[in-house]
């Protein structure tokens, strides 16, 4: 059996996302099999594991981004709060509004910085045009980008550096005021300084948001994540507090991976 949380932890934390016996196929290719995992709310949860083990697939399943892939198939269930994301009654656009996502490659729109951040609130009618300026500023401040761009909000988001673009994408997601923030290797294109800023940001944000981050940087997971899940070949191998995972993992595979003796 895969590692389970102890009941004691479950009692003291509320669960933001619960994954129940979830499997996912790209056509005939099984990418995730029987994953069970509860993501606690208002904490940082990290997904780690070698390339191709299904981390992005699971992340994208939570906000139903995998719907777009032709030939996709799943089994099991994922619930956000108490509601299944696969329920036919669920409004996927509303689900995605409540779950912010930051992709591995920064993907700002070829619009101004302001319009990039204002895109979500405008789309979802979250605030009046007069409140928009404040909302955009707040999101940019939260993403630690405000000071760098406050004098040029009308330049194109695509003209920023890679690290700035990634923070712009974080700000764009935050402007929607989601409940959950999913980040897929948000720092893979960033220098150490920008990485550090984003880490600080995530630690701050966890008082208001539930954060799930996919990362290949194990030190990063150890620094910022409360809990860490280790995936291998489409299976959840071990899931526990980061302290346990990085100091005394129960499974051999986990130990091998975190000590760099893999394969």
């Amino acid at each position, binding site marked *: 059996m895969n590692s389970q949380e102890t009941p004691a932890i479950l009692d003291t934390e509320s669960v933001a996302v619960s994954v129940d016996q979830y499997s996912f196929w790209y056509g005939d290719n099984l990418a995730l099999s029987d994953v069970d995992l509860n993501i606690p709310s208002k904490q940082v949860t990290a997904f780690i594991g070698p390339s191709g083990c299904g981390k992005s697939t699971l992340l994208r399943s939570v*906000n139903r981004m995998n719907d777009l892939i032709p030939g996709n198939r799943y089994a099991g269930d994922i619930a956000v709060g108490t509601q299944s994301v696969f329920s036919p009654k669920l409004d996927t656009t509303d689900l995605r509004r409540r779950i912010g996502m930051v*992709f591995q490659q920064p993907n700002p729109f070829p619009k101004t910085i302001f319009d990039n951040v204002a895109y979500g609130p405008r789309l979802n009618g979250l605030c009046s045009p007069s409140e928009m300026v404040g909302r955009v500023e707040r999101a940019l401040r939260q993403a630690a980008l405000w000071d760098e761009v406050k004098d040029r909000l009308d330049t194109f988001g695509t003209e920023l550096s890679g690290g700035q673009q990634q923070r712009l994408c974080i700000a764009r997601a935050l402007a929607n005021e989601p409940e959950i923030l999913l980040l897929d290797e948000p720092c893979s294109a960033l220098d150490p300084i920008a990485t550090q800023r984003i880490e600080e940001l995530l630690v701050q944000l966890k008082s208001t948001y539930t954060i799930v981050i996919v990362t290949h940087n194990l030190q990063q997971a150890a620094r910022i994540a409360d809990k860490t899940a280790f995936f291998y070949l489409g299976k959840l191998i071990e899931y526990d507090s980061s302290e346990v995972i990085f100091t005394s993992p129960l499974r051999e595979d986990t130990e091998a991976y975190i000590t760099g003796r893999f394969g």
Partner: protein
Amino acid sequence: MTDPTPDAPRTTSRSVGGDLVFRATVTAAAAIVPLLMAALFIQLALGAWPTIKEFGLRFLYTSTWDPVAEIYGAAPMILGTLVSSIVALLIAIPLSLGVAIFLTEFAPQRLRGPIATMVELLAAIPSVVYGLWGIFVLIPVLRTLVVPVLSAVLGWTPFFSGNFQGNSMLAAGIILSIMILPYISSVAREVIRAVPDSQREAALALGATRWEAVWSAVLPYCSGGILGAIVLGLGRALGETMAVTMVIGNRHDIGVSLLEPGYSMAAAIANEFAEAASTLHLSALAEIGLVLFVITVLVNSFARLLVWRVTRKFGAT
């Protein structure tokens, strides 16, 4: 920009010699095209010289066309070409963009290929067949079904006033719109398909519906290329001859109403060239050809530039 095929490292004499011959051949072949264009331009300009000398710019803005009195003003044809092409664009833009968006974003995978092929087959139908269809199908349908409604609703505007006479600007515009639809939609489809999925995902992940993602993220991303597709369609409409000649009415007059007949540059040349007897008449037709040539070359270059800029942008990302 860096040269993608630096030839410095190739040092063996065999490859250098082969390269030289090959390069000379393809360069010559490629050079023929601009040379032909230049030759065509010079030929037309020489042919048009008598009327250019005689009428100057008046040729472009006066509307008397009298081969007996040897007075030539081409304004009705120039205007007719522009108006019929604009009517065609107004109809073809929403239709062809709709087709392109449907095929790239919404159609089930199995249907995309067949529908796209069908739309593109429209481009393979000979122009004269469109003309016949216009005479035997479109004009009767316009007369019995469409024009009564248009006159009732928009009859108060000058554009739809007066009596419908069958052959008309409206008929020409509609035929043209169908003829340019495959061009606009196939280029638009390429351009839309080249928009990275990450842009769609960004919009969807923020809570956009599929349609909102298209409207607010995909189309703005490729707006330059879409504009290029439209201008390409315009270039095509401007030069279309046969079908237009068959339904536009061929009347040397400037009418505001689309229900009335008009004339186009291409139609005038096709109709009158065989009968033109005097030097000045031939010259006037050559000058119309020159004007048409310049307009279409400019419009098409502009379109290519737009499409090229967009595809190059995708190449870089």
